[in-house]
């Protein structure tokens, strides 16, 4: 069913990623080669397109192209997909428990739910939550929560400790949000963070913003790998970290 181990041929990728970048999380290039994909995610060839595209298995939700059970996971619409395309190893095997902060309309959250055990999807804005609820309707393992990611105590009575935190919030203080939610992450868990430079400060050079966010993040996390998400998402930095 899963063709992961075959395609990657790199069982120790987890450790490789952490070794390669432990001291210097700001490297702009990301790791080379293709990262290990979790079970339930694969590359599919598409007719009329050059090169394969990421895909997950589930009911289509936003009119994305699909091929049988598989639906295209567009790196331009999803920062997590973009991180895979940029070669970051997220250290996911599939079937994890996930806390998704900033789920928005549920585009990415729906794909993550396709290959995870459960996804707690936190979103603060009412309008996108309307769409998120629609996505959750036919995904038994996706739990939408209308809550503010800056105040974890307002949902800690619902969310259990998780293996993965995915964070994509467009607010100032993105490192603070990650640190505040660290309480949900198991000791061997992973933080998958998309930092949006423009949410922190539009006037400063994005590289300097990323530097500052990573410095704050290191108070509670060990940064394993980073990569700029261009050309998929302008002025975004993809970060993988683990709690320290």
């Amino acid at each position: 069913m899963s063709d992961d181990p075959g395609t990657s041929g790199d069982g120790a990728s987890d450790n490789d990623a952490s070794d390669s970048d432990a001291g210097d999380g700001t490297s702009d290039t990301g790791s080379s080669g293709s990262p290990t994909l979790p079970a339930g995610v694969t590359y599919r060839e598409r007719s009329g397109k050059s090169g394969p595209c990421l895909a997950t298995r589930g009911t289509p939700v936003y009119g994305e192209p699909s091929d049988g059970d598989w639906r295209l996971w567009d790196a331009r619409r999803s920062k997590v997909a973009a991180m895979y395309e940029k070669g970051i190893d997220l250290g996911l095997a599939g079937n994890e428990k996930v806390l998704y902060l900033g789920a928005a309309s549920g585009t990415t959250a729906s794909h993550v739910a396709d290959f995870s055990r459960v996804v707690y999807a936190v979103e603060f804005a009412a309008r996108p939550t309307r769409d998120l609820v629609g996505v959750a309707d036919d995904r038994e393992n996706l739990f939408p929560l209308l809550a503010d990611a800056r105040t974890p105590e307002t949902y800690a009575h619902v969310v259990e400790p998780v293996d993965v935190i995915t964070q994509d919030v467009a607010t100032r203080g993105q490192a603070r949000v990650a640190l505040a939610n660290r309480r949900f992450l198991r000791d061997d868990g992973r933080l998958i963070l998309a930092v949006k430079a423009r949410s922190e400060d539009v006037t400063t050079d994005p590289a300097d913003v990323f530097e500052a966010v990573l410095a704050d993040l290191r108070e509670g996390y060990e940064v394993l790998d980073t990569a700029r998400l261009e050309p998929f998402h302008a002025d975004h930095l993809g970060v993988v970290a683990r709690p320290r």
Partner: protein
Amino acid sequence: MTEKTTDGEGGWFEGLERGDLEGAREAIENRSAESPADWPAQAVEAGFATDEGDYYDALHEATVPTAREAAAEREQSDDQQLIHSIRAMDDATRTANELAERVAEWAGSRFDRSETGIPGARAVAAREPENPADERLVGLAARVVALDEEASDLREFVERAAGEVAPNLTTLGGPVLAARLIALAGGLKTLARKPSGTLQVLGAEEALFAHLRGRAPSPKHGIIYTHEYVRDTAREHRGSAARALAGKLTIAARIDYYSGDRRPNLERELDARIERIRARSDP
């Protein structure tokens, strides 16, 4: 571990009957906990669920309607309705004008004398079509007229609703400007929390960011330019007028959001301030 039954540290399901969705919503929205715990295991232990899968079924059953209703309630609040209607008004007006141009273009090829704009469309709509092409043209013109009327109805609604949502802001700025400021900020709450300097340049984001990147002078006013106190003030004093108006509008938005009563003094203070600013022009 299961001794912790006090509100504030237990799971959302504690004390709830399975299937009590109202109680579940109340618990999810209003309870809190300092840190997470293994809720699925605790729920099974407490007899709320038979196993982990059963717990997740219950959680899904509870969270989906809770999020749906909470989001709907937030979206239905009056300021959000105001935002939708002002945007709809702008869309209807813009589209009516665009289509009116098309009607004028087409009418010019068929009739000798034709006006442009909405009045032109109105004249065309009143014509008796003589052939199939006329029918389409007259039909399109009728749509333009209807769309223009819808825009007027929307404006009337905005004028009424703005006064209810934000009475002081509406008194100072007029209903349309009040609605636009609320729309630009995303809601009355967010507008009330913005500093005056931000309100002053709402709607001039492009100029503001060009300025922040060091490529342009700072914008003196955003959408508040539409207010007569800014627009009709001499150019060299417009910055001062914009600052004064923005200051009072900010105070008005805060009163509207946090207390809701009327403060007629605000208007008088603003009038006096603008008078003084304008007096600088006359030597």
